[in-house]
């Protein structure tokens, strides 16, 4: 029984049904049980305190720098008690892909939705392809699945170093640490780095110096490594971040031994690099904890997180919704919902049933009164669906003035079982570690409490790493787990590469499957993931065209505002729990580093596309912000 709040029960065969005896089962007036509840202070109380006390300050970041896209954050800090009493996350731009997609050939989704992001467009292409496959009733040949997995891994090998050293990394550099916590810097220069043998820095001060933006060797090395991954990606994808070769039912490129070798010479560079990256982030995390145990509270929030799993098994994946729980469980990254630190389900179907999207504090109109006629009262397996489920949702933008009590953002509030949850690379690591479902292989092992990884020998010796499910869940653990996601990704890629090579040797070179566009009404969903976690594309097709398209991105989840129960979103919760540990002599010199570290630990990637809204729900212009054109 994985649902505590939704009115869904399961019979003896595990089939979901709507709980009886509830007059309005999906009403948002129904009481819910929240895990790890965090409250915003009432708006009026905050204003009163702001007016009365000089030490209570508005702390606004618009935009939040070193994140992708348009994120603004409003906080109110009590600089005497060193805590935040208000936190509001704002997505300042409207993402109109749901509207752009309506009325189009579903295959366009692969190319159009890719433009939702200039960092990780390929994941949107793949997610769209997966959803189309489900709707069309087709599946790729085994090598097509392997190649798609490889593309995803290569995208993450670009994405994770970028975040760890170019975006979040500078927060832990000499420049920032010295400016925000001088005592910490003094300690750093005297503290030996435990991972010196792996990363080569004798002291934490030396390590932090090389984290300096623009000049630090770790910063520059990460820039180089993003290129290596990008090069490998374009060997198969043709372009990055908007690939040209992803199609429904596989990929449209010829895969040869030469292609595989060109990918491998780049992939193998990440084995040694990963060993170093993990040692660096282990050392940073432990250094901060040791210097001040209160750093464990920075960015803390309940262990509520959901991931849809990624990297399909070519022997199991059949693209059907009916079998999604089975093929989902065989993914290299196990799908799952963790609530209060417990893995409550790994079933993709249950994960889908539990998803709802609320817009009570977002610039949209309500499409459902919660109990009206539903387009899809059940999923394709006959299990109950909420009126707030993406298949029942319609995107109705309604721009208006910002009001903290009412509506203040373009992000919606996705919830699972009505719980506030977060998305991230770390969730897939956590789920996979906890679920113990990873397929037998020579590089990765899931123990139930940890994920063990064996990295092959390179210039550095063969190395065993182990990511352990942490006791604390905070800013530092998010970054540490993302660092471990790098070797995890590289080893998944290695497994897929070896399997693909075997297929090539056997002459199984087909990478795509023929199809026809069905004309009947049907639905599909792509369950996939971005570098920063959970990504779904729900679609409805009719007469061969898209009639509804709904995207839930990880940053929509993490940047979500308060929901129908006035529960803050993950960024907001994490900031409300964050102690202010920065050192400053007067309020004017306060820089907000603890808040910024917290926000960046989620790897925010706001949809970096501007649409000008012209009323009547029409999107009249799109400005893509992408790094497209890097040809292989």
């Amino acid at each position, binding site marked *: 029984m994985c649902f505590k709040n939704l009115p869904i029960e399961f019979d003896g065969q595990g089939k979901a049904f709507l709980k009886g005896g509830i007059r309005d089962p999906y009403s948002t007036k129904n009481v819910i049980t929240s895990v790890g509840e965090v409250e915003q202070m009432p708006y009026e109380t905050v204003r009163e305190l702001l007016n009365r006390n000089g030490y209570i300050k508005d702390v606004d970041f618009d935009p939040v*720098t070193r994140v992708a896209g348009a994120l603004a954050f409003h906080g109110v800090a009590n600089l005497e008690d060193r805590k935040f009493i208000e936190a509001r996350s704002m997505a300042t731009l409207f993402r109109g892909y749901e509207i752009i997609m309506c009325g189009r050939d579903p295959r366009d989704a692969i190319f159009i939705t890719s433009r939702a992001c*200039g960092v990780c467009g390929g994941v949107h292409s793949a997610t769209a392809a997966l959803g189309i496959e489900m709707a069309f009733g087709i599946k790729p040949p085994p090598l097509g699945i392997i190649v798609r997995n490889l593309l995803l891994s290569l995208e993450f090998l670009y994405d994770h170093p970028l975040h760890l050293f*170019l975006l979040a990394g500078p927060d832990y550099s000499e420049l920032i640490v010295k400016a925000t916590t001088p005592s910490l810097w003094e300690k750093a220069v005297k503290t030996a780095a435990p991972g010196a043998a792996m990363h080569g820095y004798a002291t934490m001060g030396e390590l932090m110096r090389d984290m300096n933006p*623009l000049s630090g060797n770790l910063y520059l090395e990460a820039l180089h490594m993003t290129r290596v991954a990008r090069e490998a990606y374009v060997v198969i994808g043709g372009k990055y971040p908007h690939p040209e070769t992803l199609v429904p039912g596989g990929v449209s490129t010829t895969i040869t031994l030469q292609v595989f070798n060109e990918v491998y010479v780049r992939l193998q560079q990440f084995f040694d690099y990963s060993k170093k990256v993990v040692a660096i982030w282990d050392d940073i995390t432990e250094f901060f904890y040791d210097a001040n145990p209160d750093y464990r509270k920075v960015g803390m929030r309940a262990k509520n997180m959901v991931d849809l799993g990624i990297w399909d098994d070519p022997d199991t994946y059949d693209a059907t919704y009916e079998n999604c729980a089975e093929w989902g469980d065989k993914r290299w990254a196990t799908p799952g919902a963790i609530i209060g630190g417990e893995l409550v389900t790994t079933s993709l179907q249950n994960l889908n049933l539990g998803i709802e999207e609320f817009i009570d504090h977002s610039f949209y109109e309500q499409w459902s009164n919660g109990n009206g006629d539903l387009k899809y009262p059940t999923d394709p397996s006959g299990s109950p669906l909420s009126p707030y489920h993406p298949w029942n949702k319609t995107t109705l933008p309604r721009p208006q003035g910002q009001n903290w009590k009412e509506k203040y953002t373009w992000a919606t509030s996705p919830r699972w079982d009505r719980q506030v949850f977060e998305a991230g690379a770390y969730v897939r690591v956590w789920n996979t570690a906890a679920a113990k479902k990873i397929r037998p292989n020579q590089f990765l092992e899931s123990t139930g409490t940890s994920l063990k990884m064996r990295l092959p020998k390179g210039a550095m010796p063969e190395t065993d790493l182990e990511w352990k499910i942490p006791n604390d869940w905070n800013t530092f653990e998010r970054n540490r787990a993302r660092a471990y996601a790098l070797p995890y990704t590289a080893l998944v890629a290695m497994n897929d590469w070896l399997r693909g090579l075997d297929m090539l040797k056997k002459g199984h070179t087909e990478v795509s499957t023929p199809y026809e566009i069905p004309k009947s009404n049907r639905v599909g969903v792509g369950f996939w993931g971005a570098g920063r976690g959970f990504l779904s594309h729900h679609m409805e097709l009719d007469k061969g065209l898209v009639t509804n398209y709904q995207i839930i991105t990880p940053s929509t989840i993490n940047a979500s505002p308060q929901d129908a129960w006035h529960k803050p979103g993950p960024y907001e919760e994490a900031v409300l729990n964050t102690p202010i540990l920065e050192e400053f002599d007067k309020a004017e010199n306060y820089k907000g580093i603890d808040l910024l570290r917290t926000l960046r630990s989620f790897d925010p990637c706001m949809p970096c596309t501007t649409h000008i809204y012209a009323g009547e729900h029409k999107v009249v212009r799109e400005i893509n912000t992408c*790094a497209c054109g*890097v040809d292989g």
Partner: protein
Amino acid sequence: MLIAGVGHPNLKDLSFGQILLAHLENETWPPIVDLENLSFGAVAVLQWFQDSPGKYDKVLFITGVEREGREPGTVNFYKYDFPLLDDEVVQACVAESVTGIIGLDNLLSILHYFKALPPDVEIFELEPVDTNIGFECSPEIEARFPEFVQIVRDSVTAF
């Protein structure tokens, strides 16, 4: 010498750099001239330059860009003066570049900071007339293409 177009695609005059470059590719140029579309992430462009250090003695960047107080259709042709750069600005440019922003100012800051530019850099900017979606420039701008080609020829001749 390198002639490079910079900008987002399919936005009419905002895509001037790419569109004029495609037009220039149909013209005849001396063998010392390369034409390249550098409308991708500035860090990737930096790495493109770093692959062939010292290959070019002069670069001409062509772009459509909106500047405050400039009349639509205005052409500004000027030499890049290699301004002093603030580290935080460059850092922001890198963060923008790796997360998907494409633009001349961002590109110049990154190339300049990492010393990837030759000493002679010229900029050919057009203030857009029409910035809606479209594969071609606005008719007013298209009609002036011979004038624009001549500007580029003059730059090549001066080199």
